[in-house]
């Protein structure tokens, strides 16, 4: 353990209001920590730059999954286990419940939160492609009030978000409009469990009469942020699902992504596997 506990502050104000007031008083000074599955790893490695932390674990305002007619609202403090176990999410948002089951181990799923994962903003995070594809909206809270923003475009760069220094994610809203879509999710990691993804694909497609009515494909670990394959979606919309489209989609996807060589894998592999997974997705549509 490469950090000294005495050098850190950790406060637990106990309510969302108190937390956002603290963030407002000293913006950028306090790092929120939920389940700690990212922050505590950095802390133990001695690489956590923050010294003052505010606990948002178990804040009642961040918990709970509400189902309304138009959307499912997931408290940002919900754990991956809670998300996995929710019936409506499993039925209507299977890309997210699959991703929840792939994130770390059960012990880490019991502590890791959706909000924490979004804020940690790793391009390899398993749930983020699903949020892109579902076009989730984020409810953000601060002392200045609340705002609601689309998740698409929120992740602005490598580990960068459109989150103001005094803001917290309060909830993630998923619109209930994907009945009739084919869902495809696949994660490729170094082993079957407890693996950071090398490539992670989440996709939805709607086909009518053999023609692609709508398609959304998002990929993790192939760019500085999780990526919607906008160009690939464009070449697919309105087209017949056949082997020519498969080839075109794969080629376009290969151009859109920006994979790198890193400690886990290499660009060539990531590109090839992305293409294969896109092809596999199309296979499900056709």
């Amino acid at each position: 353990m490469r950090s000294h506990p005495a050098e850190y502050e950790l406060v637990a104000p106990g309510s969302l209001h108190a937390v956002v007031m603290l963030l407002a008083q000293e913006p950028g000074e306090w790092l929120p920590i939920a389940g700690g599955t990212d922050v505590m790893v950095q802390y133990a490695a001695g690489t956590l730059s923050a010294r003052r932390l505010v606990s948002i674990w178990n804040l009642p305002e961040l918990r709970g999954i509400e189902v309304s007619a138009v959307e499912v609202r997931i408290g940002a403090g919900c754990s991956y286990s809670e998300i996995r176990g929710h019936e409506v999410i499993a039925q209507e948002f299977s890309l997210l419940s699959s991703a929840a089951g792939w994130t770390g181990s059960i012990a880490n799923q019991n502590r890791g939160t959706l909000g924490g994962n979004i804020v940690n903003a790793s391009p390899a995070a398993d749930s983020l492609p699903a949020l892109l594809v579902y076009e989730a909206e984020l409810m953000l809270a601060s002392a200045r009030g609340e705002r609601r923003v689309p998740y698409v475009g929120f992740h602005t760069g490598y580990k960068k978000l459109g989150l103001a220094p005094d803001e917290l994610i309060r909830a993630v809203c998923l619109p209930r409009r994907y009945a009739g879509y084919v869902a495809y999710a696949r994660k490729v990691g170094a082993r079957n469990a407890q693996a950071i993804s090398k490539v992670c694909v989440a996709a939805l497609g709607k086909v009518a009469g053999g023609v692609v009515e709508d398609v959304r494909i998002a990929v993790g670990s192939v760019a500085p942020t999780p990526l919607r394959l906008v160009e690939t979606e464009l070449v697919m919309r309105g087209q017949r699902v056949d082997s020519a489209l498969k080839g075109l989609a794969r080629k376009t996807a290969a151009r859109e992504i920006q994979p790198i060589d890193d400690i886990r894998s290499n660009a060539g592999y990531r590109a090839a596997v992305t293409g294969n997974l896109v092809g596999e997705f199309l296979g499900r549509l056709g």
Partner: protein
Amino acid sequence: MSAGQGPGEIQFTVNGEARSVRAYPMERLLDVLRHQLGLTGTKEGCGEGECGSCSVLMDGKLVNSCLVPVLQVEGANVVTIEGLAQGAELHALQQAFLEWGGAQCGICTPGMIVAASHLLSRKAAPTLEDIREGLAGNLCRCTGYIQIIEAVAEAARRGVGR
């Protein structure tokens, strides 16, 4: 407890006993258990939440105690390996591990048994796949998992979790 400067009092239940510790809020639950409470059954294998040898139950849920700051344990109910046996009587999982060779060097064993008890509390009749998945967060270098899985299956047959 809300002050972050210096150590403070944190109260929680461990293995059914109310405890109060004086600790820095960012001390890891793992370290508080081992060094302050003398419960050295919970081990540190990696410090990064990968090996599971620090597994404990927190409010009935399996967590890696190396990743839990003790401040967040306030008011919680923690169960460690020491809380499983009832005096001289071993928990059925412990007994099964002994009979089926589930423990070799033993360092992963406490976390593995805690994880198995968590699994059986959620799934009293787990399939082979359920057991594999339930234990996938606990690394064992000695056994190849074969006899661990068999021990857990045996414990399930004997009615643990029901």
